[in-house]
């Protein structure tokens, strides 16, 4: 009897530890919430874009994830000091509004606090999901693509461009095309996430059409899949 009681007690303690704080949504609840609903989530920072002063209010855009799925916190309110604490793995509790902008589901007008906990997600290989309806279920997660071939982009058939059509310059986002299984996709190095001088920014500028590469990044959406790439290496 004592043994059974002890086991039940242990189970209750374990469940309590796993339970979400009051008012905090699970990833499934978050997915089920409607656009414009107020939402509160707990997740782990995987990366963030550069902090900026948005008309007197500090903002930082965060790529976050839990064991179930990914979150994109667009322009969350933060001081620069708070943003600096958002190291990969940091757990945050964030409250904001669920929104959708050009297909990207995100939290906007979010505030957050840092709480106890740490988790760094392993990238999920979504190469085989490209071109399928299932891909969107991985939206905002840290993902990888294997064995992609660099395809020409722009009128001159370059391997990459500053800006979507080459109208930018150093410091702009980099755009490049990669293909697999006969389909071509447009990928981006988001300069606010990985700007000039970062390994991936320079690696993309060194690409040649025909290179076969592996990539890592976050599964961002802009009118379709448009990953923000964080790492490029020759295909293994």
């Amino acid at each position: 009897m004592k043994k059974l009681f002890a086991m039940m007690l242990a189970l209750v303690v374990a469940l309590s530890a796993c339970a979400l704080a009051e008012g905090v949504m699970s990833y499934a609840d978050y997915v089920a919430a409607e656009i414009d609903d107020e939402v509160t989530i707990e997740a782990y920072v995987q990366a963030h874009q550069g902090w900026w002063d948005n008309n007197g209010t500090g903002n930082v855009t965060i790529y976050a994830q839990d064991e179930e799925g990914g979150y994109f916190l667009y322009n969350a309110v933060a001081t620069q000091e708070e943003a600096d604490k958002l190291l990969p793995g940091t757990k945050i509790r964030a409250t904001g509004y669920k929104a959708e902008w050009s297909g990207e589901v995100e939290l906007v007008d979010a505030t957050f606090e840092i709480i106890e906990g740490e988790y760094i997600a392993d990238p999920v290989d979504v190469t085989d999901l490209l071109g399928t309806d299932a891909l969107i279920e991985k939206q905002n997660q840290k993902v990888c693509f294997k064995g992609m071939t660099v395809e020409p982009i722009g009128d001159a058939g370059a391997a990459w461009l500053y800006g979507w059509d080459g109208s930018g310059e150093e410091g702009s986002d980099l755009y490049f095309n990669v293909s697999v299984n006969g389909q071509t996709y447009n990928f981006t190095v988001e300069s606010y996430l990985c700007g000039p001088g970062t390994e991936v920014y320079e690696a993309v500028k060194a690409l040649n059409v025909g290179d076969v590469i592996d990539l890592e990044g976050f599964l961002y959406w802009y009118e379709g899949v448009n990953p923000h790439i964080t790492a490029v290496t020759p295909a293994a």
Partner: protein
Amino acid sequence: MKRRLALLAALLMTVLSLAGCHGSRERTDFETPAEFDTSRRYEITFWAKNDNNNTQKLIYQKAIRDFQALYPNITVKLQAYTDYGAIYNDVITNIATDTTPNVCVTYPDHIATYLTGANVVTPLDGLFDDPKYGFGGSDILFDGPARDEVVPEFLEECAFKGHYYAVPYMRSTEACYVNRTFVEALGYELPEVLTWDFVWEVSEAATKKNPDGKYAVNGQETMIPFIYKSTDNMMIQMLKQLDGGYSDADGSILIFNDTTRDILKTVAAHAGKGGAFSTFKKDGYPANFLNAGQCVFAVDSTAGATWMGAHAPLVDIAQERIVEFETAVLPVPQYDPEHPQMISQGPSICVFNKQDPQEVLASWLFTQYLLTNDVQVAYAETEGYVPVTAKAQNDPAYLDYLSRAGEDNSAHYFAKIDAAKLLMAHTNDTFTTPVFNGSTSLRDAAGQLIESVNTAVKRKKTVDDAFIDQLYKDTTSLYRLDQLSGASAADGPDDLGPLPAGSVALLATLVCVWALLGVYTLRGWLKERAKKR
């Protein structure tokens, strides 16, 4: 990234506009040299903005090559930008370090802030009329426009504080890109000039859903009947059309009035969840919704016409999402269609002052070159822009271009040419808002009022007088409108709040200086008195 750039373009300048240009070095007034010294070499920097459009960048590059062929002693270095906010930010930064560009594509609102530094921007009055190097001057090596060939309405937009500080480069306005197929399917006939009542009524009709939850008009799950790109322009044009207050040339803030309140209530009435209205900031680019058959009325710049329509040459969505429909390009909605009023916008060019007047003259020569027909016509044809000179507008090449609307879906894409024609037909109906240091902040605030109401309603909040009262206060505070000279913001002059830290420091310094002067004077007086003894 594009979204944040759009935000930056609007917001970055707000804070900076209030920071002014303190720390800049004093410069002497510019005086036009009697002769341009061609024995010397000049390197001038040109900061140019393009609309995320590589063709425009290539046109700048060609213009530079052609100019340098005429003036081999002048080298022009191009720095390409894709948004005005970044240019503005960089100019402000470089004023402090005395490293401004020589020539810069900009907005008059921004120049007003640059002018808070002494002699930073070159007044162009003297250069305009210089017999050798002015418009149509005898020593100009290219066929530039005479002064009276620059469209007067556009040139006047570059005058403030009694001087011309820029020349217009391109002009555009806003257009309403309409899915005529949907309008007619809903049982309406499209008028030549839209009224707000018509747009709201048709938009509400387009929100009707079938039993399966899909919208009746398009059979899709998404429909934003009326979507507006630049809500600052929306508010400004509505106020102008209703003769409501916005601001005056002295920088008085007049926007927080009952006309604005009525506009906001109208927006709220149509913006509810699944409602008839939304915005770029809230949902995405109008062109994408229009082209996917998820929108009836999409308002955007005429300089964005190449993205609009089922056969637009530039697209941001997958081909399989584009639906077939007929596009109409019309003026923005009006309260009084007999007397339409629409905003004039588009890039201007300013010349920064330098220690060497010869360098400034070289910059002016290049600036004028950008107004030649070759550059004007080529650039205008990239989008729904209009050349800023009558000379270019009447150039046979440009007239031929206009006459070929719809011949193809690239160079002669009909929506692009219709958009340009729209502005040319309505040049006399355009207006601009007063320019002053802080006018950019007011413009941002105007848009934010609509954005806040749109968002609030969709989040099921009540937009009533109490909400709008608070919104007025919050907006005044956020954009520091109560700190602008001549301000008459939501709270009025009876609640000025504590002095800014800078003002406190200045006043403290003045007190200290006066105290030291007093001590010094007293000391001298005591010494004199002692000597007299």
